[in-house]
């Protein structure tokens, strides 16, 4: 498992501009090599007012309308005193939102304390939501997983199994049938939220794939844009394994096992590999079954209920032919 412990303010601001497309201006243009260590943000209203017990100064400090208006209603000497209450700490940076501007003297105070100051036109709530989402992604736990991740009918199927069992071949077959490859062999899983796991490839490998006996193939150049995607939530794990006669495989319910990655329990289907078995079609069925269940239809439950009703209401009869008699062959 891997988790970033800190990022620099400079990196955060650059990524905010480039990737999140939030316009953030630098106000005092000093070296922003200070570190941000957590995804929470803080609005230092109480600290400005002088109460600094429990002040979470290590967080990015956001000055919205309230803080700016509070500062403005003070006379200049008190303003500086209020601002010193926060700049006495090692703040990573100060960001003014909603187009607010800090008075020049206050910016100088921050500059002298080595604290970078930024401003944005974006409303406070909107800006904080974007910044928090970005920081949460940066500090999210990550790990690498050996397998193939394919989007099958919109469901992220993670194929796992021993090397050489044929994960890449199944992924290739799925791509050939119109599904989309996220990554093969090395998948970086990122935990987003308690129960959400996102998967993507690595920047080096992208959509290259090794097929035994052929070597490396580039799925993107070969199949085009429709065959790939960059990220996908991992929703179902398909565990491919050699058929083991001593092992009990599920016969009624498709999903009984779970597979844990980064503390997220994913439903897992055990798929035994036997000669003549078309794993690609099985994968499509797994995805469709997951979709059906998601929309409230569980075939095992429906069939079970049908069987119970038959036993209850019709004690004399085993199953009969579906049609009474072949009157006309409509079909």
């Amino acid at each position, binding site marked *: 498992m891997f988790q970033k412990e800190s990022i620099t303010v400079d990196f955060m601001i650059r990524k905010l501009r480039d990737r999140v497309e939030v316009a953030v201006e630098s106000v005092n243009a000093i070296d922003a090599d200070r570190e941000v260590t957590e995804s929470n943000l803080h609005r230092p209203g109480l600290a400005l007012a002088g109460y600094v017990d429990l002040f979470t100064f290590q967080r990015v400090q956001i000055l919205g309308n309230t803080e700016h208006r509070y500062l403005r209603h003070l006379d200049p000497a008190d303003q500086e005193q209020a601002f010193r209450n926060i700049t006495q700490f090692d703040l990573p940076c100060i960001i003014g939102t909603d187009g607010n501007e800090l008075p020049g003297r206050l910016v100088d105070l921050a500059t002298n304390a080595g604290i970078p100051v930024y401003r944005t036109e974006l409303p406070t709530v909107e800006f904080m939501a974007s910044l928090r989402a970005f920081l949460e992604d940066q500090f999210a736990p990550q790990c690498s997983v050996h397998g193939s991740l394919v989007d099958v009918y919109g469901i992220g199927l993670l194929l796992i199994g021993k090397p050489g069992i044929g994960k890449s071949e199944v992924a290739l077959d799925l791509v050939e049938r119109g599904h989309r490859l996220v990554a*093969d062999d090395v998948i970086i899983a990122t935990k987003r939220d308690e129960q959400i796991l996102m998967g993507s490839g690595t920047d080096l490998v992208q959509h290259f794939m090794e097929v035994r006996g052929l070597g490396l193939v580039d799925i993107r150049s070969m199949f085009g844009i429709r065959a790939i995607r960059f990220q996908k939530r991992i929703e179902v794990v398909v565990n491919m394994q050699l058929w083991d006669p001593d092992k009990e495989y599920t016969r009624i319910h498709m999903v009984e096992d779970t597979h844990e990655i980064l503390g997220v329990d994913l439903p897992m289907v055990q798929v035994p590999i036997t000669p003549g078995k078309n794993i690609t079609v099985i994968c499509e069925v797994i995805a469709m079954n997951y979709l059906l269940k998601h929309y409230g239809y569980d075939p095992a439950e429906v069939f079970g209920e049908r069987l119970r009703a038959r036993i209850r209401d019709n004690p004399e009869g085993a199953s009969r032919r579906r049609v009474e008699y072949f009157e006309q062959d409509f079909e």
Partner: protein
Amino acid sequence: MIERELTVRNKAGIHTRPASMIVRTASKYESEVFLRRDRYEINAKSVIGVMTLAAEKGATLTLVVEGDDEDDAADALEDLFENGFGEEI
């Protein structure tokens, strides 16, 4: 389980040829073989995985081997690294 630190000694690092040598060697054994570099732990029986490490000369990788023939597998891989994959050091 065996864990060993291995250093890449050849000049060109683990490019495609050394990567396939590692995979070929690791695949000879029943044991599970992993290589770790900072954030990545990859299966050493996957050539894409090994190349993902993008290991240059001097890089240190952690070899993790687990299984019945783990001693032989670890020794064989250590030899490969020691010899710089038969390339210029």
